[in-house]
């Protein structure tokens, strides 16, 4: 940062501010800041990707949790301070690059500067050859043209003629393309953020889904996206196949997930079947359907005190660990009194003192559920919406705990009814997303890489060839030739280029 004080007048001050903002040092500092402010986003759980973990974090640290939340540490990349840094960086970038655009445009259309008076001071090579001055210049000029140098021929006051040549304009072109591509990427991200949408849905085997807002478990759309613009389609999850590693190494690691889906679209005759896998999403118009998870849904049958069936359904339980120890909640509002269950579903059951009931393998080798039963008021009539995965037991009394295997029934105490584990189903979770900005972002990213490579690998060089008459006159005419060159970037030179020219001139005259 320059140490000079800002000027007093308002206009002068603004100009000073602009110059500071667009200076390379400011860009450097902003780049560092961007790196530093990104770090908490990798350490703290983020609302956008893991809202459950965020709530847990805040609950675990009641003092710091809310403070960190209020300063945006759980939503770093959407926080005002993060935005401030990258917006300043992009302003600095634009302010730095736009003026260079004009400079480069003029440079591209202008001729190389005339050769310096004294070439020998630049190193290079000086030698004498036989030939006419014009012929040597022509030689050099033809060689340079053939190798794509931009050239200009001129003459000094003392009569010596020269060729001045420059190459490597693509370096700055690449540099500018790279920086403008970064702006384009940001535009692509913004378009995706404004017009894109993304929803999650859990679908049990045999169950269907139709692409309307109400069918989603969670949906988020950009400010300018609308629920009416969702592409119309329905699908049914026919079957879901999953395999796990059974060898000693990495036992339990997933080896295969695949969802067999039947898709229907309006205006299309008949259904189509698709196999959706983890790296193989289903593409429907602007939307993509991704397979993102799976789990178990125990099929439970609940009877009330009179033996009437009040619930007969597969209830989605959410996996809590790699072995699919899953938790879930069953609410039975239609019995008298109302019944509620909290449950653990274990695909391969085990009990230890340390962990309690838990699963030791993700495949359903030895299935059981552990249930806790409550009777009383579920609180569903209070008007406050409840999650299907939590049970509010404030106005309920606990009836007891029991474990069930498939086909077993638990008679609840006091004749409150019974619950039976009839079996289990699988479910798959899908993310359905549309991002209209991603193509632009991709094209911009490719442009950025091309521009970057040009700006880093192409060197800007100037070379000069100067031909003067030799003072003493011999039988055949001889000329004195000077060849020299420079590279613009430090650490580079034009020795190879100069050598090539020298070789050509000597070779052709010999």
């Amino acid at each position, binding site marked *: 940062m320059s140490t000079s004080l800002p000027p007093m007048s308002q206009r002068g001050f603004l100009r000073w501010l602009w110059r500071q903002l667009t200076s390379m040092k400011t860009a450097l500092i902003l*780049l560092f800041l961007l790196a530093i402010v990104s770090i908490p986003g990798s350490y703290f759980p*983020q609302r956008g990707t893991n809202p459950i973990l965020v709530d847990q974090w805040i609950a675990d640290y009641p003092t710091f949790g809310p403070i960190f939340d209020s300063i945006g540490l759980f939503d770093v990349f959407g926080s005002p301070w993060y935005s401030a840094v990258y917006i300043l960086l992009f302003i600095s970038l634009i302010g730095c690059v736009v003026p260079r655009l004009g400079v480069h445009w003029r440079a591209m259309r202008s001729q190389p500067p005339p050769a310096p008076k004294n070439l020998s001071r630049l190193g290079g090579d000086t030698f004498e050859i036989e030939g006419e001055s014009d012929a040597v210049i022509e030689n050099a000029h033809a060689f340079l043209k053939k190798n794509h140098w931009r050239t200009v021929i001129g003459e000094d006051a003392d009569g010596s003629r020269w060729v001045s040549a420059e190459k490597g304009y693509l370096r700055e072109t690449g540099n500018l393309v790279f920086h403008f591509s970064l702006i384009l990427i940001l535009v692509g991200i913004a378009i995706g953020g404004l017009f894109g949408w993304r929803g999650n849905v859990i679908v049990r085997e045999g169950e269907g889904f139709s692409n309307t807002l109400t069918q989603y478990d969670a949906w988020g759309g950009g400010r300018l996206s609308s629920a009416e613009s969702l592409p119309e389609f329905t699908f049914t999850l026919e079957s879901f196949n999953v395999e796990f590693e059974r060898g000693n190494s*990495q036992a339990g690691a997933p080896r295969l997930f695949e969802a067999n889906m039947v898709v229907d679209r309006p205006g299309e005759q008949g259904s189509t079947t698709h196999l959706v896998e983890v790296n193989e999403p289903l593409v429907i118009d602007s939307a993509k359907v991704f397979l*993102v998870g799976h789990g178990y849904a125990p099929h439970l049958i609940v009877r009330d005190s009179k033996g009437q069936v009040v619930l007969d359904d597969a209830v989605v339980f959410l996996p809590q660990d790699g072995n699919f120890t899953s938790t879930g909640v069953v609410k039975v509002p239609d019995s008298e009194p109302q019944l509620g269950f909290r449950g653990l579903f274990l695909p391969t059951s085990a009990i230890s003192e340390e962990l309690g009931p838990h699963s030791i393998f993700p495949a359903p080798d030895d299935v059981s559920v552990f249930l806790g039963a409550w009777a009383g008021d579920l609180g569903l009539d209070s008007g406050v919406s409840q999650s299907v995965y939590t049970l509010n037991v404030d106005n309920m009394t606990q009836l007891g705990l029991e474990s069930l295997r498939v086909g077993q029934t638990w008679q609840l105490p006091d004749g409150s009814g019974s619950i039976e584990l009839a079996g289990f189903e699988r479910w798959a979770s899908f993310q359905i997303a549309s991002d209209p900005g991603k193509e632009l972002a991709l094209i911009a990213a490719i442009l950025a890489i091309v521009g970057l490579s040009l700006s880093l690998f192409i060197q800007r060089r100037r070379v000069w060839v100067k031909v003067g008459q030799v003072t003493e006159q011999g039988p055949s005419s001889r000329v004195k030739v000077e060849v020299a060159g420079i590279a613009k970037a430090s650490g580079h030179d034009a020795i190879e280029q100069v050598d090539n020219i020298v070789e050509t001139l000597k070779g052709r005259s010999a």
Partner: protein
Amino acid sequence: MDFVNSVELADASNNFVYASMVILFLATISFSVSFAAGRRRVPQIEVFSRRVLVESSGSQVHESEVELTQLDPGRRAANIGMSLTWLAAVMLLMGVLLRGVWAGRVPWGNMYEFSISSALGILVVFLVWSTQRDLRWLGLFVTIPTLLTLGMAVTVLYTESAQLVPALKSYWLVIHVFAAIIGGGAFTVGAATAGLSLISGKGWFTQLPSREKLEGLTHKIIAFSFPIWTFAVVAGAIWAENAWGRYWGWDPKETWAFITWVIFAAYLHARSTAGWKHQKASVIAIVGWLAFLVNYFGVNIFINSLHSYAGV
């Protein structure tokens, strides 16, 4: 039959990795001997003696060659070190290839495989570069981080070969990881030259190339690796779009890849900013490499990330 075959392949792969570690250790010793001997060497004499070689003819050449050997006590040890490094790279390549044959897929399914491949990446970048210019002085500072990477791989990160988790079953695995390995290897070599540029000319390190020369080399290698790293990040984003439904989601691995990218972008800017070209730029290059290390080891070990799978 298949089982016997597979056990043999597994053992062979591991043996090649161990063999390459032993050879690399010997290379490190050779480079150390060269380094210690070189302390007594005055750099200018070397340049001078070379010129004699070029300009003289006949028997004089012979004489000056003898002179050269006497003037360069560490040269022979450094040459042995280079040969051993080539041999270690070949051994490691065999180890990585056999691992792939054994697993029946690209050998980048877990952190162990990724680490032995990264160690190979460092050696390949160094050795290929060494065919363009004399890098014998750098050998010691490349073999040590490579050995540490391999040591980490065989002790902490070792995983029996197994199939890929479904998320990794994509040809983008090959493209994305290959670019990350080469980019990371070059960042590591760049960190070595950057670190040396900070101490060149001081104390033990008078024999190293000049500070300016080392800074120039650092710039060259980072200019090479930065576009590759950019490509690795973009390829990862394309893959993520296909597998997870978004091309960028600030997963910790993505965040740290971005941080690494930003720091090296700062390095390149620093190189063309007055007052930042020299020591400060070198420090930035080292910080960038540290961010790369966090991205590579730290995220998998300490942070819950979508990239945590298969053992670590």
